[in-house]
């Protein structure tokens, strides 16, 4: 029943069109699998947990107009006002807004005056409300208390004696050990900073950074020329509070310029390139798959029309309708199989180039296999309708003279 050898002989005699479809499939697999790995990587990146209650957080940045502005006093008054605003759960001061693309980073060491072997991390100068305001999950140690907070001038050599760090950074500094109660050194100094707490996750200022997730928080208020507040609202209250924040701050003190934004917007802006990439590549994959399916449908219909008499002869000689459908489906699968084998090699070669030249993620064999299986199913589905049509050719076609 299974006519593999004669089928291969027949295919060999019509090899050009079969080979073209196989090559089209090979190219499609090579492109689709590599596009899939990029899309998957971007989707994982976009879907990474930020560690923060992003949907309910508002960020306000202000710059005072007077040069002799009492920044520390303004911060205390503003935060008091914000924390007592209806719909607000908590508010905190910070030097940078998370996920904004703007931030500060330093190099940290395990030993004093160490010069090499440090680990980079994004750092924030915050207050004791920061962890609750962002909704961070403190998994070890303790939060800052007001007693930990220090106010320093912009030109002071500010140094905090305690810090809370992210779990990812803790594992980098002290692999396999608890970081709480341990010390690190910010830069090439001999002044230790004690780790008093560890939060589960915080993506920091730059989610696309290779070390995103390495974060250090210091309980410091630096009285420089601008300040930023983070305001966490009750669920569903963010938009209402958002409309009030600018007015509230300006009413309390009109001598400044205030700008308000949401963390959601920041996050969206951060991933805009990734999201465009995901959409464009998904569209390209869908189009390529559609085109290859059309090619298979076209070729199968062409071959069936070309072999209508032959189908009639086979039917006259005893082929059932199922035999005829199966013949075309197996023939199509042989072409698809050839294309997918070639495509597998092509996909791996292209991926190797993309990894070495463009630092793209590696294409894994299971993912490649999934892409190949999907394309095989697409090709079988595409051939199914024409193959079923072929099965309806009458055996009486064998006795017709045309």
């Amino acid at each position, binding site marked *: *029943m*299974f*006519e593999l*050898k*004669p089928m291969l*002989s*027949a295919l060999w*005699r*019509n090899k050009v069109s079969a080979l073209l479809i196989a090559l089209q499939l090979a190219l499609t697999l090579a492109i689709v699998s590599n596009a899939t790995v990029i899309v998957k990587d971007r989707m994982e990146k976009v879907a990474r947990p930020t560690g923060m209650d992003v949907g309910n957080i508002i960020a306000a940045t202000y710059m005072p107009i007077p040069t002799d502005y009492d920044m520390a006093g303004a911060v205390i008054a503003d935060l008091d006002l914000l924390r007592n605003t209806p719909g607000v759960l908590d508010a905190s001061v910070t030097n940078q807004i998370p996920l904004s693309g703007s931030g500060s980073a330093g190099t940290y060491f395990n030993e004093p005056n160490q010069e090499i072997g440090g680990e980079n991390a994004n750092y924030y100068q915050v207050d004791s409300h920061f962890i609750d305001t962002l909704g961070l999950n403190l998994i070890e140690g303790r939060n800052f208390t007001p007693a930990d907070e220090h106010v320093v001038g912009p030109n002071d050599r500010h140094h905090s004696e305690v810090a809370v760090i992210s779990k990812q950074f803790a594992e980098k500094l002290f692999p396999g050990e608890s970081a709480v109660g341990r010390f690190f050194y910010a830069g090439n100094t001999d002044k230790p900073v004690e780790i008093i707490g560890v939060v589960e996750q915080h993506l920091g200022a730059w989610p696309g950074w290779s070390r995103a997730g390495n974060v250090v928080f210091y309980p410091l208020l630096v009285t420089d020329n601008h300040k930023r507040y983070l305001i966490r609202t009750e669920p569903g209250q963010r938009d209402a509070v958002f409309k009030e924040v600018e007015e509230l701050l300006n009413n309390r003190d009109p001598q400044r310029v205030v700008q308000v934004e949401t963390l959601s917007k920041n996050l969206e802006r951060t991933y805009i390139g990734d999201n465009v990439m995901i959409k464009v590549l998904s569209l390209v994959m869908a189009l390529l798959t559609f085109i290859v399916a059309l090619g298979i449908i076209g070729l199968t219909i062409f071959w069936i029309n070309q072999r209508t*008499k*032959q189908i009639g*002869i*086979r*039917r*006259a*000689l*005893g*082929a*059932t*309708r*199922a*035999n005829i459908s199966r013949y075309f489906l197996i023939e199509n699968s042989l072409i698809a199989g050839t294309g997918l084998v070639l495509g597998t090699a092509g996909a791996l070669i292209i991926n190797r180039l993309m990894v070495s030249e463009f630092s793209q993620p590696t294409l894994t064999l299971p993912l490649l296999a999934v892409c190949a299986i999907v394309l095989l199913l697409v090709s079988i589905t595409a051939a199914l309708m024409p193959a079923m049509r072929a099965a309806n050719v*009458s*055996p*009486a076609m*064998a*006795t017709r*003279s045309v």
Partner: protein
Amino acid sequence: MLKMQNIRKSYRTDTIETHALRDFSLEVNEGEFVSVTGPSGSGKTTFLNIAGLLETPTGGQYLLDGQEVGNLSDSERSRLRNEKIGFIFQGFNLIPDLNLFDNIDVPLRYRGFNAKERRRRIEKSLEQVGLSARAKHLPAQLSGGQQQRVAIARALAGEPRFLLADEPTGNLDSLMARQVMELLEFINEWGTTIVMVTHDPELARRAQRNIQIVDGQVSDLRQTIAQPEAAIA
């Protein structure tokens, strides 16, 4: 072997209904060699299609080897065609992409024989038609007569009890036609029932019995040995 009673076959379009066979009755006995003649459009091919289970009649009863075949499913008809009927077509109807061996192999695969049995039957049938040395040739590499002998070998390989030949010499010159006809006569001598549609009066005369179809009906049944000219007039 074959018994048709009041067979009707009509083809209908939106505006026209054509009656290809009307109250067509015929009986062919086991081992007979019957020729079927008639003018173009008389219903010869329709008779052949119905006899070979390639088409279903609109009405009437058809018994093949004692089995009523009118109500069989498409798959059952395919199986019967494969097991009991051998076909020889005017245009040879070989599959051009397959060599002779694979062409003969086609119906045997549908029959479900194993590879060893198929090979035995293919080699035997090629030997019977004198083409053993050409097994790996493509049909296009053979003459018309040789191609028709391959078609006969393909029909013989299934060891059918009933052979239907549609103008088997129609595309051959007289020498080739005679060789093919002699082959058919040999096959008939081995016990295979043959019904042959032909335009050639010479060939029709060589059958044991000739049937003439006119306007979809059997017009005359005669022993060709007794009245050959009248039977094919």
